[in-house]
């Protein structure tokens, strides 16, 4: 185990109405086995002991699955490692003497609430507009009476793996939520259970996405590059197809 010294430039902003700015902090003897958030914990303990305000950031499971954490690290959502959330990024990927710039996920649809903590509730509202199969509890058929080819189920699972962290939006030059939306639309379009509401779902979710102020996809592919779960932009192609088909036949 080795340790490194770091300079951090962190976005500090008191609340949504305040102006923010980057503040510089130094941290010494950071163990390289630490996770990025543990490094921020160490900084916050230090700031607290010095009588300064600790940095506010969202986090919960710290296992890369709840989707609550995330920040822009040196310009990249969730940092330099492929397919990890910020909580699963470890300090062994940084070098002694590095300066690390840490900013919140930024997008028109994500107001900054404090420091690195943002409001991503727009993503919830996209799901609320139709990202489900409308079945009530009870009275469903036996699980095995809906056979699904293994490959198909695996494809649906690839899309369903989305954790809703919103890094895709923060990385998109257009601030689009297409990868997020397409993951849910794809999962359900690929499964027999999703067929009944297939068209209506694609239309409603895209409409909500637009209403929230998210942009449109121009195939910059930044979303796929930063997605901690490796969600493919093929899902966006699928969403476009689903939307087009629905709009032509229903709209």
């Amino acid at each position, binding site marked *: *185990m080795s340790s490194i010294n770091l300079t951090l430039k962190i976005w500090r902003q008191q*609340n949504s109405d305040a102006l923010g700015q980057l503040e510089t902090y130094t941290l010494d003897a950071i*163990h390289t*086995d*630490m996770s990025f*958030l*543990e490094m921020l*914990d160490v900084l916050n*303990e230090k700031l*607290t*002991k*010095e*009588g*300064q*305000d*600790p940095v*506010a950031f969202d986090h*919960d*499971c*710290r*296992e*890369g*699955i*709840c*989707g*609550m954490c995330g920040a822009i690290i040196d310009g990249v959502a969730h940092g330099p490692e492929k397919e*990890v959330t910020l909580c*699963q990024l*470890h300090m062994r990927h940084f070098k002694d003497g590095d300066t690390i710039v840490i900013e919140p996920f930024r997008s028109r649809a994500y107001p900054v*609430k*404090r420091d690195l*903590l943002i409001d991503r*509730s727009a*993503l*919830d509202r996209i*799901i609320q*507009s139709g*990202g*489900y*199969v409308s079945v*009530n*509890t*009870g009275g*469903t*058929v036996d*699980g*095995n009476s809906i*056979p*699904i080819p*293994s490959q198909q*189920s*695996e494809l649906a*699972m690839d899309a*369903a*793996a989305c954790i*809703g962290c919103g890094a895709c939006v923060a990385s998109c030059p257009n601030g689009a939520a297409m990868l997020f939306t397409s993951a849910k639309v794809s*999962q*359900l379009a690929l499964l027999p*259970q*999703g067929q009944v509401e297939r068209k209506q779902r694609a239309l409603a979710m895209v409409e909500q996405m637009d209403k929230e102020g998210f942009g449109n996809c121009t195939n910059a592919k930044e979303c796929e590059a930063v997605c901690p779960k490796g969600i493919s932009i093929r899902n966006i192609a699928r969403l476009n197809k689903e939307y087009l088909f629905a709009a032509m036949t229903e709209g």
Partner: protein
Amino acid sequence: MELNARVPAGPLEKKWDNHRFSNKLVNPANRRKYSAIVVGTGLAGASAAATLSEQGYQVKSFCIQDSPRRAHSIAAQGGINAAKNYQNDGDSVFRLFYDTIKGGDFRSREANVYRLAQVSTEIIDQCVAQGVPFAREYGGTLANRSFGGAQVSRTFYARGQTGQQLLLGAYGALSRQIHAGGVEMFTRREMMDVVVVDGRARGITTRNIMTGEIESHVADVVILATGGYGNVYFLSTNAMASNVTAAWRAHKKGAGFANPSFVQIHPTCIPVHGDYQSKLTLMSESLRNDGRVWVPKKQGDKRLPADIPEDERDYYLENKYPSFGNLVPRDVASRNAKEQCDLGKGVGNTQLAVYLDFAEAINRDGEAAIFKKYGNLFQMYEKITDSNPMKEPMMIYPAVHYTMGGLWVDYDLMTNIPGLFAIGECNFSDHGANRLGASALMQGLADGYFVIATSIAHYLGTNKLEKVSEHEQDFIDSRRVVEDRIAKLLKNSAGGPAGKFTVDEIHKELGKLMWDNCGMARNKEDLEKALKELPAIKQKFWDYVYIPGDTKEINQSLERAGRLADFLEFAEIMIRDALTRGESCGCHLREESQTEDNEAKRDDENYSHVSVWEYAGQQEEPKLHIEPLSFENVTPSQRSYK
């Protein structure tokens, strides 16, 4: 305190049907006149809120995170049990019931556990209908695997992300109801108190985490689905925000707390690597299906695992428990790992780890097959430890994972405060002294989708509730108590941090006290010592904790301080509970109660009961009550996995 479990009459397999028939109903047109508060949006909370709203009740749902999709159920990896017997390998409702009650070491209620096994099959159907992408066989049918401690394949799974997929299913159902207007969703709210009016739970007091606002919410029933209290140990596999506050505040308002010392220590976690560590990461125990657990035979053997020849390795689980081998229940696996490390045979830097080796499985089934099963777990492990389990054995060590104890509830999942219900990990009801793998997801969804609505209808159908409002004295008092407590938390902070302690520093101290004295193996002497040392930590917290910032803004230090204050109070009944239970059972070994070959010895004569604690006041000792357990359908046997 009256502890009437209200278990329905009749033979075991008829109890649930009889109960549903004899329970009162609320007719569909009247349901919209009733409101329910559901706190927590994990599997239990989200499924309950969605189901009650579908049935027509007005629901208010609360979560502490920024979105209901983030609750810690999402992190469950391995799977969900159900008595479908799709594999035709001898499973049945009775067998799942038996395994669960036996796995819980005969410390749970027969009727509740049987109902859980009964509704397990409906859960799978429900989740499939929602579009949960369970693993499938090539013919398109649902795949199953066998899971820690079970001799049948009854576990359904979605890669290593079963909890995530089930939670997103429930979140979908909840989102649909939010969209339809049946559920009003409150995110980033922390429940600070239950409001009891005329002896009935009629609302809650919350703190808005974004603004610091103290708010009142009124309803006809309050359902707590606020999870477990594993974070009392500071380090656990729980999410950072998981806490005991909601359950503890309910307890202080009169709800009994059952079996608080029943804590599950999960055997397959990534070992601790430094004192900056913030949480422990679980590796699904499905890994034990193909991984072999071993340590070097020689003490202090520092060679790399690959350099240790086969005959110098001790596959201690296989040797000691030939019929179950690496699949012994969690407590047995955990205790044996600790035992090996205590003997000086632990591996890795800290020597607090054992190997979990996939070499033989890779030889047998090929790299591709093993990677398909465990790929995402291996990747997660590699990201954290920088070591690839396909190339060298994993290192694992036990960690606090699940709490079987919780609020005492009757058969209807109602606490002893009328109108206050507890579901999921938050209650004590189904897992006795130890929970089987893949049963937490089952219980959460059973309670939320299939049990709670029946209970709510009966409660509302049999009680006449007066209208109440947040302007009533009980609500005003509750808000005042919450505000006073926050002011008290902040009282030391005006003078700056000099000579003070941070919240985490004190939490780590509490965690160490609990892990050392109230962990896997316990004895009277250490427990009494812990009970004596606890008040000093509590005092230190109230006199010297430093919390930066203000109350009317986002203040994450203040949030953590509030939770720690409750953990510090709660720890006392945990230790007392462990102290009064003089037997080894389920997850924990009581050192004074062992067999000749050092296995746990249960004592049915003296401890075949649920221990329920009653809050008696700030300066008073808590009171212990007992709900005796009787077994009419199974004969408690001494567990043996040899």
